[in-house]
């Protein structure tokens, strides 16, 4: 058999195995969540879950947390990264190294440290569900940083800013009229990453005794496992739809030809991991 033939067989096998690994849990989850032994296909488990008094408030709570986390991350990182790229490029490697620290600090360690620190200094702080926002900003930092950094590297920031200034535009106008529109794909990527991570975050919320959507999923899973499976599946499908919509936009812009969106797209890949982990 020729080398090319062997290669295509290996590729086919890898594709099938990967597809099975990916699809079997989803199919099993769908089968379990949307069927009852006596009835076959049914929406009863999901209807029960949605009817639960905790569902609405906890979903809204998680959405609000995701929104606030994204806004806080952008407010912190966009000006910082723009400044680093324009004025202090030599510090970029250090900033990048700092941005991955959350990956090496386990969430449990973060919670314990936060518990100790805030109980001693501001005891009331952790009682509000929105006290999770700064911790979520830290958790999402590595991914959001990379998405924005990739977007900034994909445009000739210095030249664009100088060109804008030479046309009479001040720094603030340049930021909003030139920099942000050209970062749009990176902003979308970063927002999507931030949203999906927060919507799937369980450890911090449960250890700090806050009721969020992932906590609701776990709680309901103890009494009604079929409802938890169905809701998890719907969450994954929702994420997929968001991802597809974004990727479609990215491809459409790429067809028009801009350089900026292209580089930002691959960063989306890790987005699937948090949801898959939580719903499993």
């Amino acid at each position, binding site marked *: 058999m020729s080398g090319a033939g062997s290669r295509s067989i290996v590729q086919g096998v890898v594709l099938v195995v990967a597809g099975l690994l990916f699809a079997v849990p989803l199919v099993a989850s769908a089968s379990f969540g949307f069927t009852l032994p006596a009835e076959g296909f049914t929406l009863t488990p999901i209807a029960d879950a949605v009817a639960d008094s905790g569902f609405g408030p906890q979903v809204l709570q998680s959405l609000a947390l995701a929104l606030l986390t994204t806004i806080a991350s952008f407010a912190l990182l966009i000006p910082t990264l723009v400044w680093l790229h324009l004025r202090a490029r030599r510090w970029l490697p250090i900033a990048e190294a700092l941005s991955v620290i959350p990956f090496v600090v386990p969430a449990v360690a973060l919670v314990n440290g936060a518990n100790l620190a805030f109980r001693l200094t501001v005891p009331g702080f952790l009682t509000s569900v929105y006290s999770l926002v700064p911790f979520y900003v830290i958790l999402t930092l590595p991914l959001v940083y990379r998405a924005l950094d990739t977007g900034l590297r994909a*445009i*000739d920031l210095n*030249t*664009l800013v*100088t*060109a*804008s*200034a*030479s*046309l*009479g*535009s*001040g720094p603030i*106008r340049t930021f909003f*009229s*030139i920099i942000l*529109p*050209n970062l*749009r794909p990176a902003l979308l990527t970063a927002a999507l990453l931030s949203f999906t991570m927060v919507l799937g975050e369980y450890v911090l919320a449960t250890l700090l005794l806050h009721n969020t959507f992932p906590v609701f999923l776990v709680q309901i899973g103890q009494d009604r496992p079929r409802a938890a499976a169905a809701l998890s599946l719907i969450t994954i499908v929702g994420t997929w739809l968001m991802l597809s919509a974004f990727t479609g936009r990215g491809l459409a812009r790429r067809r*028009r*030809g*801009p*350089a*900026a969106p292209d580089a930002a797209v691959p960063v989306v890949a890790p987005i699937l991991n948090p949801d898959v982990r939580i719903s499993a």
Partner: protein
Amino acid sequence: MTTTSAEVTLRSIQKSFGRQTVLNDVDLTIRGGELLAVLGPSGCGKTTALRVIAGLERPDHGTVHIDNDDVTHRRIDKRGIGIVFQAYSLFPHQTAAENVAYGLRVRGTGRSSREARAAELLAMVGLADHGSKYPQQLSGGQQQRVALARAIAIEPRVLLLDEPLSALDAQVRVQLRDEIRRIQYEMGTTTVLVTHDQEEALSMADRVAVMRAGQVEQVGTPHEVYRRPATAFVSSFIGVVNRLSGRVVGGDRVLVLGQGLTLSTAGHSVGHVIAVLVRPEHLAIQRADASAADAATGVVTALTLRGAISSLTVLLPELPDTIRVDLPSREAQDFTRGDRVRVIVHAEDALIDASAVPSAAVRAGERAAA
């Protein structure tokens, strides 16, 4: 269309980056309405000079005036300048028309006025039908035309061109430099062109400032810097020059290739050996006898047709390398490789370089690039 012709004056400008002095006491005046090309090899400080005028670099010492307005410490967006960059600098998220209109929008010009102005300027740069295209849909040359239209849309007091053609291929470059010159002439905007391409500088500029090592060596019309270079560097940087060996034989008399020439010897004593710089077109040749054996008689080693003129490469006995002689092609066709010829120097076009070691024909651009 409004004509702006502000005069720009740099006085005693100094600029260092760390220990490296990039601009060393630069004095330069760009007259109202002229196109001044700042020409020099890489690292000579020409781009830094442009950035100082733009307000992108603050000088360590000295002042920048636009007319009588001291703008030394003024931000770039407050100077009233337009810039066309070497890199493609159009805003990717805006169409060509939106790019051109951006500066007017910043100034609060009404929508209909700025759209009309953008259309007018796009027509001026030959892109009337491309207003709705995004930068990615335009070629490099078209992008630079839009960038030019965008820069002049705001009717700047000074237009700065930072090697705007260097990223383009040769054919587009030649076409676009003629267009830039035409538009600049029509607008009458004071313009500074930074370039390392001598052909570009000589063909576009009203005056050329030649820079070396952070200093201005000469400012003059293209004709002046080519025909009457103020220094040996200028003569060797612009065009092609032959370096011949000469010996001072008294007063302003120098013996070059066995021929006594009247040259300013700049205080050299009798007996000193000096370098004499002569352009290829300022040398002539005549056929020599096979038996002739003096310093001016050599052998043609190559003949290159360059259109209206031809270049003959001649090897002389007392020079280590060949020299180049340019002749009208009609005269050059009488010679062929291996011919013995006598080289004649026209004294009125020769220049002395006391610091140089005599050598062969040197193409300055090639040397600078190396």
